[in-house]
């Protein structure tokens, strides 16, 4: 029996090629989108889950800050051995460091100081070396497989000596490269004991945060058990009340970065939800298509169904037959979908920079779930048409009556078209909003001029400055400790108006003279730093407008500020500079436009990290070459790196940029599928109405009249869908925009464009066939009246 169904299903599909093609394409695209996005979602949700003890590893947070005190971890282990099985600290070196082996110098950014317990807490398999002893000596270093290859090529790295920061370190282990789906990565590990040589007793200091502390809890212990003891631990060792410490599960870190987080890459759980929802939407649209086309197509099968019933078929047998046809179609669509997936995964992987191909393995579990998905789609999409078709009365077969004109089914079909276009229009609105917000952020006036500004390392700065300044293409050169786009650190400060026991912090920017001018930052009042005035170096401050507002100063110029830094041995803060405000700058966006502008204090310092160079727009290439030359002459062989400030700042919106592109792609696909469905329906409706069209033409209708007649109904449906999409789109987009301190206005414009695009596209889809039908010779359709 089943064989018979399959046979006739295949023959039927072959006979109606257009119908089959439309359905196959729509369904396979829908399935492919679903599959690809599922892979991405699975990858995102897999971060940090590869560790053996993932579920028992937590990070300690101080309030909303990820950085904790250095002695916290060992203290926890010593004082609470029944709660805490093990602890490990990380201190990633922020700046690139030189690793020297014989004559080779590699500058590596991803080096981390850590405790030997790292291998008991986390799972990083060692290819060489003993995890128990590898980091026991302060003069050990472990390197990743990739780093080993870079440094030592094919030779054995074990026992070799690498010099870092002037200290000889012995390679005691090689570890498997840290997987990409980790919240942090490292290419080399060194012992925290080594850090003691450089930081001394600051390692035992409770008054500063800088380390990341992870704990491995005993499986029977509840994280709240540990959280309960933290306040007393803090008051014991710091002498202060502190109740804000709490635990963050390891698997939570990727989606929930905190202040001062390790910050390699962070995921956005919202995007995971959004894309997952869209994937479901697209699949729904494809299934709706199937239902619509199948029920419209049913008009061609009234006779067949009637005949089969006359010959003895009952409803159950017919339903089974039509469901089998649905399954065959959806299974074929699945195969085609897998083809699309294989084709597009490399592109999508590249685009998202995630190795999604790795997840695309056809093991038993995934094959079963794919088959399950197909069955599900087949049932969902196929059941309504199956019931519809098997309900035809045999008697109608001989009257040549086509059932597809029945009221309830037509209403359902119309509703489904509107629904499809509601979803598609919503997606257009979303894609447009993302695009516009992105463009807004990229073009917004940041309060300084980031065009043609180059940032590079300020090594041997005085010499560098002089040489580069001589280059003809250089307009300006200056330097600072941080540049816009990097994190400006918080430092304690005090003003005369504040009580003496309060010590709030404010973001601080330390600069060389000329920095504000190089970046084109405007003074709101007062004056900028002047190199010639010695007091400017020792006791002058500039603040931004937000700081003035925050401090409640209407006349900031001349007000006194005490600025604090760490004391000599790093045990506490002391006044490092006291001085007067000489000027106020207009607020400028030194962080991403996700954040409002925070108060900022600026002062001169000889300590600089980065040089900023404004180059003449038409001499970029030659100037770059010149700068590179100067660097090679003055830096003693260090690798030369640089970036352009505007590109780097645009990069801050990478995730929005990517979201925008993905959205755009998905919207196009959703529209494609909806239009396929609309096209299919048009074909059937025009065929059905062939006689009517012929008659109208004979009675004098023009081609335009006919086209208007045929399109009118469909366009009404599209508009209805659009009307429903408006409130949902408005609400959803407004919610998304709250993520940004600086955002576009969600005006009528976006909705108008979305609506008219949808209508226009629908019109184009419908007109192709309408024009064909309208131009046909009326004699043909009237003659064929049976």
């Amino acid at each position, binding site marked *: 029996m089943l064989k*018979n169904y399959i046979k006739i299903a295949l023959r039927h599909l072959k006979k109606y090629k257009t119908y089959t093609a439309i359905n196959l394409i729509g369904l396979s695209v829908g399935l492919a989108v679903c599959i690809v996005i599922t892979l991405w979602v699975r990858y995102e949700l897999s971060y940090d889950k590869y560790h053996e003890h993932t579920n028992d590893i937590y990070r300690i947070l101080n309030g909303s800050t990820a950085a904790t005190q250095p002695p916290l971890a060992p203290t926890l282990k010593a004082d609470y051995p029944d709660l805490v099985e093990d602890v490990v600290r990380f201190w990633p070196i922020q700046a690139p460091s030189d690793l020297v082996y014989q004559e080779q110098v590699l500058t590596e950014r991803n080096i981390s100081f850590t405790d030997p317990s790292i291998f008991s807490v986390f799972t990083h398999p060692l290819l060489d070396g003993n995890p128990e002893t590898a980091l026991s000596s302060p003069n050990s270093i472990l390197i990743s497989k990739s780093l080993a290859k870079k440094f030592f090529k094919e030779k054995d790295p074990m026992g070799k000596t690498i010099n870092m920061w002037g200290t000889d370190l012995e390679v005691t282990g090689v570890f498997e490269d840290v997987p990409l789906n980790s919240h942090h990565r490292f290419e080399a590990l060194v012992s925290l004991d080594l850090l003691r040589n450089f930081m001394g007793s600051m390692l035992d200091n409770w008054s500063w945060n800088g380390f990341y502390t992870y704990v491995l809890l005993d499986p029977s212990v509840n994280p709240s058990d540990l959280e309960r003891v933290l306040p007393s631990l803090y008051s014991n060792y710091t002498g202060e009340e502190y109740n804000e410490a709490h635990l963050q599960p390891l698997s939570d870190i990727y989606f929930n970065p905190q202040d001062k987080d390790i910050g390699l890459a962070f995921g956005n759980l919202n995007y995971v939800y959004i894309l997952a929802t869209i994937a479901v939407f697209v699949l729904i649209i494809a299934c709706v298509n199937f239902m619509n086309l199948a029920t419209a197509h049913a008009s061609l099968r009234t006779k*067949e169904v009637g005949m*089969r*019933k*006359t010959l*003895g*078929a*009952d409803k159950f047998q017919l339903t089974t037959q039509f469901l089998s046809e649905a399954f065959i179609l959806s299974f074929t669509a699945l195969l085609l979908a897998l083809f699309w997936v294989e084709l597009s995964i490399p592109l999508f992987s590249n685009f998202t920079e995630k190795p999604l191909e790795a997840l695309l393995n056809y093991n038993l579990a995934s094959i079963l779930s794919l088959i399950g998905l197909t069955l599900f789609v087949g049932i969902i999409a196929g059941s309504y048409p199956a019931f519809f078709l098997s309900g035809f009365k045999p008697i109608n077969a*001989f009257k040549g009556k086509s059932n597809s004109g029945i009221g309830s089914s037509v209403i359902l079909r119309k509703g489904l078209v509107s629904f499809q276009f509601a979803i598609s229009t919503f997606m257009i609105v979303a894609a447009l909003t993302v695009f516009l917000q992105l463009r807004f952020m990229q073009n917004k006036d940041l309060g300084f001029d980031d065009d043609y500004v180059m940032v590079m390392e300020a090594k041997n700065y005085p010499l560098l400055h002089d040489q580069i300044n001589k280059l003809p293409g250089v307009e300006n050169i200056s330097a600072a400790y941080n540049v816009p786009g990097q994190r400006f650190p918080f430092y304690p400060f005090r003003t005369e108006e504040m009580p003496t026991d309060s010590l709030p912090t404010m973001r601080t920017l330390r600069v060389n003279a000329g920095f504000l001018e190089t970046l084109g930052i405007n003074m709101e009042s007062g004056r900028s730093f002047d190199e010639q005035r010695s007091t400017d170096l020792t006791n002058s401050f500039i603040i931004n407008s937000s700081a003035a507002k925050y401090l409640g100063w209407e006349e900031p110029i001349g007000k006194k500020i005490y600025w604090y830094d760490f004391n000599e041995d790093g045990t506490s803060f002391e006044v490092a500079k006291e001085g007067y405000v000489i000027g106020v700058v207009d607020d400028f966006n030194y962080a991403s436009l996700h954040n409002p502008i925070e108060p900022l204090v600026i002062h001169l310092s000889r300590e600089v990290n980065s040089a900023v160079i404004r180059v003449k727009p038409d001499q970029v290439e030659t100037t770059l070459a010149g700068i590179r030359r100067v660097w090679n002459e003055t830096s003693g062989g260090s690798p030369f790196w640089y970036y352009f400030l505007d590109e780097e700042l645009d990069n801050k919106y990478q995730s929005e940029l990517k979201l925008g592109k993905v959205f755009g792609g998905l919207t196009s696909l959703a529209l494609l599928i909806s239009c396929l469905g609309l096209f299919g329906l048009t074909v059937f409706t025009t065929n059905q109405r062939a006689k009517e069209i012929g008659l109208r033409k004979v009675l004098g209708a023009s081609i335009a009249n006919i086209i208007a007649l045929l399109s009118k109904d469909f366009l009404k449906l599209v508009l209805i869908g659009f009307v429903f999409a408006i409130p949902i789109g408005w609400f959803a987009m407004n919610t998304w925009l709250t993520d940004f301190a600086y955002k576009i206005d969600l005006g009528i414009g976006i909705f108008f464009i979305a609506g008219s695009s949808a209508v226009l596209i629908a019109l184009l889809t419908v007109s192709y066939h309408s024009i064909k039908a309208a131009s046909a010779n009326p004699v043909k359709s009237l003659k064929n009246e049976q």
Partner: protein
Amino acid sequence: MIQAKNLKKIYSTEEVETTALNNVNIEIKEGEFVAIMGPSGCGKSTLLNIMGLLDNPSDGEYHFLGHDVSDKTERERAQFRKGNIGFIFQSFNLIDELTVFENVELPLLYLGMDSTERKEKAEAALERMSMMHRRNHFPQQLSGGQQQRVAIARAVVANAKLILADEPTGNLDSDHGNEVMKVLAELNEQGTTIVMVTHSPHDADFAMRVIHLFDGHVVTENMQEGFHV
């Protein structure tokens, strides 16, 4: 076999009521060959549909094989139809996607017969109608006469007791038409009850009895004297 008492069939739309059959009384015994004649629109097809359990009368009684089937649901009617009634239509109504053989075996499939038995019976029916040589062809590849022969094979393959034919020669030329009527006569000789709706007096001559319908009533009934062989 068939007893119709005071059959009435009314079709209503929102505004119009059409009486297709009015007070029709008919009795057909097993083994009879009855022709139903009348002008277009007189209710012949409606009557045939009710006889074939494809539709229910609006009023009156209809007994088939001794059972009162006037008020049955479609599902119940289908049970009666299966294996008991075969249909032959003016426009053949073969399923285009199936081969000749598959068309003929279809009723047997729905009766749940296994494939060996089906093959046996379907091939026998095709032999009888001299269509075995085209068993793997599709309906579109056959002439009108051949298609009708396949349709007849399908109608008899399950050894139906009653065959209902609606203008069986309507779409055929006279030679093929004659062939078909000869086959029907043969079937009747072998014991199958045949009820045929026709326009053609020539075809009606093959029947034992002719019932004339006009505007939904039975007008006359004649017994024919001797029939064509």
